[in-house]
């Protein structure tokens, strides 16, 4: 752990809301976390939990009705070559289309998107697209950029990189395309890499390859990775620190071992119990979480999980929203079961 220096990215009470005619969707509603250098920070949650909107907020690419209404996102700029003096920049304050944000996006913070097919232009070659990214952020001639593009393709383990530079995205297989997108994300040596479900669209054996590659790259480059997924298996294998989200709120966060072996929040516990694994007993009824995820327009009051929670405290959970509470050295949970003193009063 490289905790001796401050966090690379520090998000405080981030709220991203979508104001629509039908009502306000509070996609992210008060999320705080720190990401350190060299750390793989996992965000796990089901659909509608706000994991993708969190990612989009950091990159400032939230689409139209969405707006960051509160909070700050401090990106540390220490140790950056040619640093302009200031220690950190609040991403929430920047103009999303402004010069500064555009110099950060893609260069300091890069994204590995979910759909490698949709992320490349089908009418330009892979090489041209990577070279374009490099030249956008670095003063370098075409030849030099081509050289670094070649290197990148080699780094991510693409065979015959010279030929692949001339290839179009649709000529590559799913695994190679995913590698190419990783190469593009790495092209400006970002300090923070955001991977949004990078293995959801690929097969298990390709997934294993991609995870291995990311682990390797992270070690080599000492970049921080925010890894977003709904797959608990993947998160257990790659992340160091895990944040569990549900309906726009952080339910629990902590070191990966604590989350999987000492989960504190009823939601985390129930989620872990309900997945059939290759090691569990076959053909017995799985413990389920009753009900389904509510629609974002009628989010329940109080703790968003209380209607489905087996351990809810009537009169408390359905009225007030619990705050994040430290339950261990690095583990935090937002649940009234861990709020001493407050529970007794119904």
């Amino acid at each position, binding site marked *: 752990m490289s905790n001796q220096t401050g966090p690379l990215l520090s998000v405080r009470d981030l709220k991203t809301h979508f104001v629509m005619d039908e009502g306000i969707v509070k996609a992210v509603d008060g999320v705080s976390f720190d990401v350190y250098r060299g750390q793989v920070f996992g965000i796990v949650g089901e659909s509608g939990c706000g994991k993708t909107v969190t990612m989009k907020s950091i990159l400032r690419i939230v689409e139209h009705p969405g707006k960051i209404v509160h909070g700050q996102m401090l990106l540390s700029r220490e140790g950056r070559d040619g640093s302009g003096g200031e220690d950190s920049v609040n991403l929430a304050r920047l103009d999303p289309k402004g010069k500064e944000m555009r110099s950060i996006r893609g260069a300091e913070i890069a994204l590995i998107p979910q759909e490698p097919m949709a992320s490349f232009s089908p009418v330009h070659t892979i090489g041209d697209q990577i070279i374009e990214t490099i030249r956008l952020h670095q003063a370098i001639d075409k030849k030099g950029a081509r050289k670094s593009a070649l290197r990148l393709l080699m780094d991510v383990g693409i065979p015959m990189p010279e030929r692949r530079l001339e290839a179009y995205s649709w000529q590559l297989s799913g695994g190679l395309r995913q590698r190419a997108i990783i190469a593009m994300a790495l092209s400006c040596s970002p300090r923070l890499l955001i991977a949004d479900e990078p293995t959801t669209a690929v097969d298990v054996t390709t997934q294993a390859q991609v*995870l291995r590659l990311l682990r390797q790259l992270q070690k080599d480059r000492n970049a921080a990775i925010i890894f977003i997924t709904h797959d*608990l298996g993947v998160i257990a*294998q790659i992340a160091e620190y895990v944040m569990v989200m549900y309906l726009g709120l952080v339910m629990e966060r902590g070191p990966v071992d604590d989350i999987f*072996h000492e989960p504190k929040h009823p939601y985390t516990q129930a989620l872990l119990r*309900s997945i059939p694994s290759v090691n569990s007993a076959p053909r017995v*009824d799985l413990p389920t979480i009753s009900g389904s995820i509510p629609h974002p327009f009628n989010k329940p009051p109080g703790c968003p999980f209380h209607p489905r929670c087996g351990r809810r405290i009537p009169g408390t959970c359905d009225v007030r929203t619990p705050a994040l509470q430290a339950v261990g050295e690095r583990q935090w949970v937002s649940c009234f079961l861990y709020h001493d003193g407050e529970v007794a009063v119904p």
Partner: protein
Amino acid sequence: MNNDKTPLLEVKNLCKYFPIQKGSFKKIVGNVRAVDDISFFVNEGETLGLVGESGCGKTTTSRCILRAMAPTSGEMLFRTKEGRVVDLAKLDRSEIRPLRQQMQMIFQDPYGSLNPRMTLFEIVGEPLLVNGMRSRKERTDRVAELLHLVGLRPEYMPRFPHAFSGGQRQRIGIARALSVNPRLVVADEPISALDVSVQAQILNLLLDLQTRLSLTYLFVAHNLGVVKHICDRVAVMYVGKLVEMAKTDALYHSPRHPYTAALMAAVPVADPRVQTGNVELKGEVPSPANPPSGCYFHPRCAHASDVCRTRMPVFREIDPGHFVACHRAEEIELAGIA
């Protein structure tokens, strides 16, 4: 290939090729061998899992069985309710239609598989109407019964699918499939589009329905954890071929085909203390239009020898009930899941 039980469905040498056409005269220049000479059986009352990576032909196989497409060659022997054995591959449209009552399908995408302009009553009741249940009263009763069976309230009948969540929609799809009392249910990735917290509910429902209605499932999936949970036997496909088929326990604990072992090793386990993915499978799945020589798996196989490069292995019974297509199955030691 026979057990003590009589198989409900026996597939023999099933092939499905898609021609590759070129030029203005649509000359056939090759074939995509989506399903290439596979044989398996499904016993009455059991669940057979069909697993493999995308493009391996598992969906094509299930669609051939339901005759959503006509197979190129091969036999699919189905034992009907009356005890007759018919070859589904040879039947024409009018003959297959009454049999469809006995074979139904549950689809992967609960958002795409329900007509948004039809109410629940119309969706679940349509198969009944098609199969001759004319009285609206009778149909209403049956739909109510079905909705109750899958854990939905009968009052939902006049509503449209958009009012329901993914898990509830999948329940509607299951009710529709069960409306005509099928015996064989083909479930093509029935839970992969659902949220993790809802998947367990649908799995439990499928298991419960199987015991209550003595259904036979052909369960197509790529999630090995789910397959282990629900299936009695599992068949593994790779580039249009079956590579291994065995009882679930045998397959997971002592796989005999290197591909099965690699597939198991690639599954990320939801436990940070167990490191998985250490054995990496090199390369990519070959295209079924242009498969490699010999055993299709040999370019990626750590155990490949000369014979694997030249000769296609036969799908044979290596232990009672354990089938494998590998030249070296006897010699090599493979690790399963502990």
